[in-house]
Each structure stands twice: as structure tokens, then as C-alpha cells.
């Protein structure tokens, strides 16, 4: 039965590839969900934060002595770790100078809760970053050249042979993405600051009555969301070529994932991204690769149609 073996083999192959990619998509979605969940701001510049994270990794590895000192593989993971604090600070600065003017408690009383201004600001930021990157980095696609990007682990299947190949760069990136998401979930559910962030998201006015500084919570949330997305970008850079418009390729996945999982649930956002990764890879088994994105949106529309609150979102009762 060589046909059956082939089907099992390629299904498992697609599933493992989908889980690795989906985990990375999950982390991107978590970045978006942290900002939306806590600030109620839809950040349209999220794809550009991802792109900047990728370029940071690129220049940290090829632009410094990191590559010679640690090698292209280890070096790129050092860059991933370095991107977190840097982009956290970048995010808090963007919040302090721009976002705080169009979000927070003071806009709750306005007609559209500041949403028009937020849309214009984040969309504008996205265009400025995209075109700024074009000027600074140029339009030619670049690559990090990590030695893991073209290396694979071969895993033999039990029984009568056959084996699947797991791309090392994607697998490591996926594992790190899972680790970061778990760490974030623990931070949000166990620590005092994490609970404070959730309280500020749940009821900003009541949080103020508790002595929680909601503006500071929003700054932390925007910093976290920016850092998570940039880290996801640095992870993507270990296996994917980059150019200034690369964010656009992923931003669609981010929105679809976040909506799938429920707009304000961090865990849900991760599962949403994971599902998209798996669907995208599995669909390649039966559909031409050009239709991968179509498959994602068929699933997306089905979920929106039958479960508009998302797979993991609560039916909210905000009164």
C-alpha cells in the first residue's frame, strides 16, 4: 500500500510544518491581542513592527561581529533576545508620544471612543514606517543567512519506514514562540502587574478607583505588544527573506488569527494563529499553493459566520 504510506507521510509532514509555522503566527497574533485586549486599540502598524523586528535581526547578525563571534544560527537567536527589550522601549515611546493622545480613559466619553483617530494614527504610522524602511533599507530582498534555514531534522516514522523532514529554523522559532506565549500567559494570570493590566482592560474607570494608573498600563501593553511582534519578526527572519513590505504578508494572518481566537483573549489569539498555520500547510496537500491564503479565509469566514465571538472569545456582557 505505497499510496496510503505516502498520504500518511505527507499529512504528518504538513502537520508538523503547520504546527511550527502556526506557533510563530500565534506569537504575532498575541502581540496584536495584547494591544487590543488591554487598550481597545486596533494597531494597523503591527505588520511594520514585525518588519522592523526582522531588519533588527538582520543588522544585528550581518551588520555586527555577532555572526563571526557566535555563528549565523546562534547569532540570530541572540538578536531575537535583544529585540525584546529594544522594541519594548520603542513601543512605550510610541505610546508616550503618539498613542496616548488618541487612546486611554479620556477618549471613552467621546462619540466613537477615539477609534477614528486611532485608525488614522496607526495606519499613518504603518505607511511612514513602510516607506521609511524603503528609504533606509532599500527594496532588495535580503536574508539573514542562518545556517539552520536550510537544515532539516529527519524523523523516521515507526513501522515500515518513511520519514518526515522538519526545518530546523522553523522548528526552533516555533518552539521559542510557544515558550514566550506560555511565559506571557503566566505573567498575565499570576503576577500582580499582569492582573493589574487585566483589571485596567476590564474596567478602566474602576481600575482608577483602585489606584491603578491606566495610562501606565496602556504604555506597558503597547510596549509588550510591540516587543512580542518584533520578536516574532526576528524569529521569522531566521527562515524568511525580508523587504520593507514584508509586514503586509503577515498582517493579514495576524488579523485573521486574532478574530478566529476571539479579539481580547491572549490564549485564543495564539490558538487562532496556530490554526491558521496548520490550515495553510494542510491545504497545500489538496490545493495548489496559490490557494493557501484562500483556504485560510474560507475557515475564517466560516468561524465568523457561525461563531462571531471567535473560537475562544466570551460572549461579552459589557453593560
Amino acid at each position: 500500500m505505497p499510496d496510503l504510506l505516502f498520504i500518511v507521510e505527507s499529512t504528518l509532514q504538513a502537520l508538523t510544518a503547520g504546527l511550527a509555522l502556526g506557533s510563530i503566527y500565534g506569537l504575532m497574533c498575541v502581540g496584536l491581542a495584547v494591544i487590543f485586549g488591554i487598550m481597545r486599540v486596533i494597531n494597523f502598524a503591527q505588520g511594520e513592527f514585525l518588519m522592523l523586528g526582522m531588519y533588527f535581526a538582520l543588522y544585528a547578525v550581518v551588520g555586527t561581529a555577532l555572526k563571526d563571534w557566535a555563528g549565523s544560527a546562534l547569532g540570530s537567536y541572540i538578536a531575537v533576545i535583544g529585540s525584546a527589550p529594544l522594541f519594548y522601549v520603542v513601543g512605550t515611546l510610541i505610546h508616550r508620544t503618539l498613542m496616548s493622545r488618541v487612546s486611554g480613559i479620556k477618549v471613552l466619553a467621546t462619540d466613537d471612543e477615539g477609534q477614528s483617530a486611532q485608525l488614522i494614527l496607526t495606519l499613518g504610522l504603518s505607511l511612514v514606517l513602510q516607506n521609511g524602511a524603503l528609504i533606509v533599507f532599500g527594496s532588495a530582498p535580503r536574508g539573514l543567512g542562518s545556517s539552520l534555514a536550510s537544515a532539516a531534522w529527519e524523523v523516521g516514522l515507526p513501522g515500515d519506514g518513511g520519514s518526515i523532514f522538519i526545518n530546523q529554523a522553523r522548528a526552533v522559532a516555533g518552539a521559542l514562540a510557544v515558550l514566550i506565549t506560555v511565559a506571557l500567559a503566566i505573567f498575565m494570570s499570576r503576577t500582580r502587574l499582569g492582573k493589574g493590566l487585566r483589571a485596567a482592560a476590564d474596567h478602566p474607570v474602576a481600575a482608577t478607583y483602585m489606584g491603578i494608573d491606566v495610562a501606565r498600563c496602556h504604555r506597558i501593553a503597547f510596549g509588550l505588544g510591540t516587543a512580542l511582534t518584533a520578536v516574532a519578526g526576528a524569529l521569522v527572519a531566521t527562515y524568511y527573506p525580508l523587504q520593507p513590505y514584508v509586514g503586509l504578508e503577515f498582517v493579514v494572518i495576524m488579523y485573521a488569527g486574532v478574530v478566529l481566537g476571539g479579539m481580547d483573549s491572549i490564549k485564543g489569539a495564539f490558538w487562532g494563529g496556530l490554526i491558521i498555520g496548520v490550515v495553510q500547510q494542510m491545504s497545500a496537500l489538496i490545493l495548489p499553493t496559490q490557494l493557501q491564503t484562500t483556504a485560510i479565509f474560507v475557515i475564517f469566514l466560516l468561524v465568523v459566520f457561525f461563531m462571531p465571538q471567535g473560537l475562544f472569545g466570551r460572549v461579552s456582557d459589557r453593560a
Partner: protein
Amino acid sequence: MLKIDALSVTYGGLLALDQVSIRADEGEFIAIVGPNGAGKSTLFKAISGTVAAASGTISLDGTDLLAVAPPMRPHRGIAHVPEGRQVFKSLSVADNIAMGAWPLAPRAAEWTQTLERVHALFPVLAERRDQLAGTLSGGEQQMLAIARALAGKPRLLLLDEPSMGLSPRIADLIFDCIQTVHKTEGMTVVLVEQRAVEALSSCNRGYVLESGRIVLQGSQADLLGDDRVRKVYLGR
């Protein structure tokens, strides 16, 4: 302790509070009664800083409260139990109480003590500690809102319509608890209520607020003896 002097607040051109002056001394129980829309909640929001004062002063222990940023005011010892409870529905009961203790940055020992204190007052919250606050009944949510406020060990407790939407039996229970806290801990309490009988019968002094103005003030005996208060608010 709390001194409000000639406070005016405007809402989009409308005068919600007009030259209101109120005082609460250390350990006092102050009741503020008045009809719907008299500006009672606005008064508390001005104290907590979620609405801005147009003119007048608010001071706590002699320091100008209006100069303190709103999220820093609870750190000065003020706890505000808002109208409509406003518990954090997506957080557990225990986490809601923990948020009330935010100004204390609780350490383990102190936190256990805080929990025991509010659980003794409201045993039902101990049973439901891991439940999401949004799944509690109205009465339980009100208890949680009060427990959350007490967790911060405030010196001044602002209670906005704690009986709203509750059955008379639960409302009585809530009033009893407030009395207990006031008597055993000597906490200064300012209570805003539509249920004038309950409010006035627990207070030391009281104010009657109508259309943003203080129309009457006095001791408990003065207010309970006032003809107009008896007719309009007590229905006798």
C-alpha cells in the same frame, strides 16, 4: 478629614454640582441623600478625579486633593465603591480583592490577613474565591465591590448607592456590614443613598442634595426631625 468647599462641576455646559460644601471628620459616618440626578455620584467622581471640578476645592487631611493625579488618590487612603458595583467581571473574586489592595503592594503575610478580614465580613466571597466576578449575583457583586474597597485598608470609604438593585434583605445585610466596618474599625464613611431611611438611621450627620445644591444639612436627629425630609424622603 475630607473637606469639600464650594465645589462646582459642569457636564457639557450643565451645572451638575453648584457650590457644594461638605465635611467629613475622622471616624464620622456621613449620609448624603437626594433624588436621582441630584449630583450624588458626580460628587464622588469629583473626589476620585474621574470628572473634573470647575471650581472649588477638595482637601484630604489638609492637602489639596485636586492637585493629586486621579490614580494616586486611592494611595492617599480613599476607597470608592462606585455606583453599579463595577467589579472586574473577567477576573476571579480573589483577584478582584487583590486589585483593591493595589495601593498596599501586599506582602504574603499582610495579604492573608486582608483576605481573612474581608472573608469574615462576607463569607460567601470565600466560597466563591476562584469564580469569575461576572458570574456572581448582584448582591454578591456588591459585597465584592465593598470587600475590594476594604482590601486597600482605606481611611475614607465612599459608598455610592450600595443598595441599588438589591432585594431589601440583601440591602439590609450590606448596610449591617457597613455599620460593622464603621464601628469596629472606626473608618470614616460617606454614604450616598436613595434609600433615605436606612442611610439616615446609620449616620452621624447628613446632607440633602437636590439639583446639585445642598438644601439641608445637620445631625441625624435634625434630619430625621425635619418636616420636609420626613415628607419627601421618609414618606411619613
